[in-house]
C-alpha cells in the first residue's frame, strides 16, 4: 500500500482537529471553572440569585411545603424537601457550574452558575 495516499493539507487538518479535540477535553471536562452563584427557582420562576461564598439557608415554598436550601463553603444543596422520592435531596452537595437539583413535585429547583455567567462554550 502506498503511503502517499493523503496529502500535506490532510495532515494539517488532522492536526488542527486533534488539537481542538484535546482542547475540548481540557476546557469542557478538566477545567470547568468555579461556580459563583446559586439560582433558586420556585414555580419555574427565578426568585433569588445568591453568591456561594456567603453561607446561608433559604426556604422555597411549593405546593407540598417548604424546600430547604443550604449554602455552605462554596457549595449548595437541598437540605430538606417534602417530595416523596427525595431525588433532589439525594443529589447532595452541588459545586460545579451548571449542576442542578430539581424537586419536581414541589416545583422548586436550584442551579449553580459559573464565574462568567455562562458555563459552556458554544461554537
Amino acid at each position: 500500500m502506498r503511503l502517499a495516499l493523503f496529502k500535506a493539507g490532510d495532515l494539517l487538518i488532522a492536526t488542527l482537529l486533534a488539537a481542538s479535540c484535546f482542547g475540548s477535553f481540557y476546557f469542557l471536562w478538566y477545567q470547568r471553572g468555579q461556580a459563583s452563584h446559586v439560582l433558586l427557582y420556585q414555580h419555574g420562576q427565578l426568585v433569588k440569585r445568591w453568591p456561594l461564598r456567603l453561607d446561608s439557608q433559604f426556604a422555597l415554598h411549593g405546593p407540598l411545603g417548604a424546600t430547604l436550601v443550604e449554602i455552605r463553603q462554596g457549595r449548595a444543596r437541598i437540605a430538606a424537601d417534602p417530595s416523596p422520592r427525595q431525588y433532589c435531596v439525594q443529589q447532595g452537595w452541588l459545586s460545579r457550574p451548571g449542576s442542578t437539583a430539581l424537586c419536581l413535585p414541589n416545583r422548586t429547583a436550584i442551579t449553580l452558575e459559573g464565574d462568567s455567567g455562562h458555563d459552556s462554550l458554544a461554537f
Partner: protein
Amino acid sequence: MTHWRSDPPHATAHDLQLARLAAIGLALSLLESAIPSPLPGIKPGLANIVTLIALHQLGWRAAAWVSLLRIVGAGVLLGSLFTPGFWLSLAGGTGSLLMLGLASRLPVRYFSLLSHSMLAGMAHLAGQLLLARLWLIPHDGVWQLLPPLMLSSLLASMATGLLTLTLLEQHPSCQAKPLP
C-alpha cells in the same frame, strides 16, 4: 434467459446509479446497526464511504442524493423513521453534506478525500449536537458530550477517509463511473 423488467422505463442510467450507491450505503448502515456500541451515538459510519465515493466521482448533488436516500431508507428499514434518532441522523447528514460542499472547494493539490471526510465528520457531530441542544435536551449540559463524541468522530472519519482512499486506489471497480 429470464429478462427482469424491474427497472421503470423512465429511470435514467444516472438515477439507477444513484439508487445502486444508496442501496450499498443502506446495506452498510444495516450491517453497522448490528454491531454493539459501547455508547449510544458512537459508531463507525461505514456508509459514509459510499457518500465520499459519490462525491468524488459524481459530484456534490449525487452525494446529497445518495446520503439522504440512505438516511430515509435506513429509517424505514430499522423502524426509526421520524423518531428522534432519525432526526439526529438527518441533522448530521445535512451538516456533513453542507460541509462537503465547502470542503470539496479546497485545492485538490493539497487536500484529499481524507480532509473532506474529517471535516464532514465534525460537521455531522455539530449538526447532531445543535439539534440535540435546541430540541431534545435544551440544556447546556449537552456540551459535556462533545469531547468523547468529537474524539470518536475524528477517529471514525479518519478511518472511513483512509478506507475510501485505499478502495479507490486499489480497486478501480469501486469507482462509480461518471456518466456522460
